[in-house]
């Protein structure tokens, strides 16, 4: 079975540790070995927010040196940042290990995971991370206009994806804190998902997770790994899915 270097990023290990638990559970359920990238720093997304490209590149050069083999990311912003850095450092892809986003891992192991997983029967509004899909010429992960990876991944655990008007739009998570646009976008998206009758919003990006859950008093926002872990038999509380979440009670 393949082994991956697990790149956790910042938000997941420090704010959403149960998402990390969920990821590890999913990986071990199909016998995937992971090596820890000890000492890895933040991936400095968007070229360190546009502030300094040199630092961004240096930090990620260092991150790559800590990997042993293919890197698996848990957050799509990390995926994009590492992939961009990789292209800049090594355009031909010969010297640096490849980087794989979590949803691609699920897609590749769909059969095995599908066989082992229970059906959850949830109606999920998918939050497609901008950084997973675009720019499509670079990312090459999924169809940017009609993405199917997450849809298929949910299907494998018996969940249905719910179509709504704001499905492909950006959550606003990378907009600076003082802008009220952040709030407008998140609220628009959550109300659209609620209006379509979703049980929860599902994402594979830690920034979407953080930003949308901050603006979703009723509708639970979860990482796809959490649903997968649940479907593969993990304890709901261990992976951050308390029964209350599903009864639409406020999180805080």
């Amino acid at each position, binding site marked *: 079975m393949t082994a991956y270097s697990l790149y956790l990023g910042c938000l997941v290990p420090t704010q959403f540790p149960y998402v990390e638990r969920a990821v590890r559970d999913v990986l071990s359920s199909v016998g995937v070995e992971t090596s820890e990238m000890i000492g890895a720093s933040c991936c400095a997304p968007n070229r360190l927010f546009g502030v300094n490209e040199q630092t961004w590149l240096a930090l990620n050069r260092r991150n790559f040196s800590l990997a042993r083999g293919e890197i698996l990311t848990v957050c799509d912003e990390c995926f994009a940042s590492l992939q961009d850095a990789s292209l800049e450092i090594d355009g031909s892809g010969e010297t640096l290990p490849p980087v794989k986003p979590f949803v691609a891992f699920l897609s590749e192991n769909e059969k095995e995971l599908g066989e082992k997983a229970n059906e959850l029967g949830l109606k999920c509004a998918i939050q497609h991370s901008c950084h997973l899909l675009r720019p499509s010429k670079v990312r090459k992960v999924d*169809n940017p*206009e*009609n993405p199917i990876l997450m849809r298929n991944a949910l299907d494998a655990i018996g969940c249905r994806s719910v179509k709504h*008007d704001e499905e492909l739009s950006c959550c606003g998570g990378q907009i600076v804190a003082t802008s009220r646009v952040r709030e407008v976008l998140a609220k628009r998206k959550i109300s659209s998902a609620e209006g379509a009758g979703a049980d929860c919003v599902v994402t594979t990006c830690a920034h979407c997770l953080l930003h949308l859950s901050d603006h979703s008093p009723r509708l639970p926002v979860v990482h796809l790994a959490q649903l997968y872990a649940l479907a593969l038999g993990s304890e709901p509380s261990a992976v951050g899915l308390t029964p209350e979440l599903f009864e639409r009670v406020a999180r805080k």
Partner: protein
Amino acid sequence: MSERPRIGVFVCHCGKNIAGVVDPAAVVAAARRLQDVVFACANIYTCSESGQAELKKAIKEHNIDKVVVAACSPKMHEPTFRACVSDAGLNPYVVEMANIREHDSWVHMRQPEEATQKAMDLVKMAVAKARLLRPLEPIVVPVTRRALVIGGGIAGIQAALDIAERGHEVVLVEKSPFLGGKARMLDKTFPAVDCTSCFLSEKINKVLMNPRIRVLTLSEVTGVDGFIGNFKVRVKTRARLVNERCTGCGKCVDACPVEAPDEQNLGLSSRKAIFMVNTPSSRPCTRLPLDYHKEVHLARHSFSPRTAVIDSERCTRCGECANVCPTAAIELDQPDIEEQLDMGAIVVAIGFEMFDPRSKPQYGYSVYPDVLTSLELERLLHPMGPTHGQLLRPSDGTVPKRTAFIQCVGCRDDRANPYCARVCCMVTLKQAILLKENYPGTEVSVYYIDVRAGGKEYEAIYNKAKSLGVRFVRGRPSSVRERDGSLMVEAEDTLSGVRLEEGADLVVLATGLQPAEDTPKIAGMLKIPRDQDGFLMEAHIKLKPVETVIDGVTVAGSCSGITDIPMSIARGHAAAAKVLGLFSKEQIELEPITSFLDLEKCKGCYACTKMCPFQAIEAVERDGKKLVELVTSSCKGCGTCVAGCPFGALDQYHFTDEQIMAQIDAALEENPRDKIISFNCNWCSYAGADFAGVSRLQYPANTRVIRVMCSGRVSTKMIMRAFEKGAGMVLVAPCHPADCHYISGNEWAKKRVDALRTTLAKKGINPDRLWFVYVSAAEGNVYQGTMNKMNALLEKMKSGEVAWEGQVAGAPVAK
């Protein structure tokens, strides 16, 4: 030749094109110092009347017997100067050109000194070859005065009519069962917004009634051999499964149980596996009184042969049609027919196709039924179309109250077609006018980036559309989405900066136009290069806009670049004029640059017979001795056999081994280590290097190009000669694998280079000094890139970073 040759050198200023970078006086002075040069001068425009007069005068006054013209590319003016010296009494084949424009002044604009030095070298090389040039007599061949027209659209039809009306036979080959191409599918045409039928039916009828035009529908050209005046064309006609007893009664159509999408309606409606073919309908124009039209149209369309045709792919051979046919016209076991035709000239008029907007999924085409392409809308408006001319929404059959047109879908788009497709603005304006005139009160909005109305009477149509109340929004929509059951067009009104989300009942995508699907196949068959956008390349956009580099093959219509109907017809006329020009002679002359044989040296190894794709070399036995015999009339002059003969028994007129070696020696006489010898083939890489010049792509000035007809002419001996004389690097630049003008010359070139590279290190030559890069006629940038990369490596060798001899990992191979 006991006397020394008397060479005249003429250095052209070409206005400032050459003289702005290269110093012509210096080049003339250097030329004068060369052995056998008895005269050298500069001209401002050597190709002009006065320039040519000076040339002829000099020839006479100084008894010149060999001429070197240092000017533009020989692909531009070699014929001009050959004719000129011919006029002065010399054999046309004693002219050699030095390309100091496309290969020099235009690509070394910031290095005048190096460019001048290079020009001097190029002249030296040309003089070295000129010394050895011999007079040659052209090969005379007869002309078969029969023309093949590939494509039965408006341009092909026009060309066929012109040629036939002058008394020559024409075979018109059309893939579909219909004549008329895309024009046939249009209801009205711009700028007058008049019926297509008005002009098209008449032309189609004329074609069908002309006894000299043989129309082959359901037919395709499967192969072409031969040369100008003497083409051998293979045509395959698919079986119609219906014979000539068909009266067009139509009973078979009713009986047929199989349904298929109707291509004539772009799949918006269906037809049976058996269907009728006839000429465009007679729908009255809205402009003139109805009665008048009835008469005129009936008169025009009284000759409307209708026959049935069976779509053999969909037909299940159930035989129901045969059961009801009153004249036993159905023949389900009818075979396909293949025939070989002798033709003197070929007109390619294969037209264009529409961009498929499924590759722009943000517009919802094929997801939302009410998003259509402009051609589909045209079919909805056409009386023979799926809704009999009623504008109805595909989703619910109602008349749309708000129609949105989106321009530039799949054109002016780096992710689709970067060019502007020229006609879509006018198509939309025409359709917008039709909507407004026929459906009063309807709203029409056009979302555009620019409105391009550059033809005759076009701006007036734009004004008419505006006066009818068509709304123009300057902003390219980013997407079309469905919200609350309605289509929403999302665009920014860039003139005000306001973001819009506007509802529409029908969205029409004005899709761009692209080269026809068969273009690569036809281009490959005829050996016509394609330009960067995939269209067939004309020989020269201004000098020869309807001819191709293949003598005897012309292009008409949109296959060489999108154009409107008037221009397609004009190109049809022009192509026909070229054909008629050819047919005005009974014989023509071919370039005598063929191979020749020294029987004494031939050892009968037959290696050459395996290299010739034209069967121009035959293995024979004479008095028990194995020899070969040349079939000169089949020889295309590639020189592949010459380069492959281990005993030097073969050589090529006008490109002899001696001449080429002399060019190599001349190029490397001074500072050889600094130089790159580049063997370019006439059709691809020489033209590609020319194109780099035309595009003013700059690169270092140390390349010396040696022109051969085909990369197959480049022998191991030639490459080794270059290295022995001290060349820094050598480039062999052939056509891309499937594009060789002589079929397989480039394959042989690759074999020889690969084999040589393995032995170079042993000879003390770093194999990285020999490069092999595919360059097509349109790839000026690839040639420039290769020059830059080679020079980078050369610099490393000159600085000592990389060894001149020995092996280095990662030797560049063919890209």
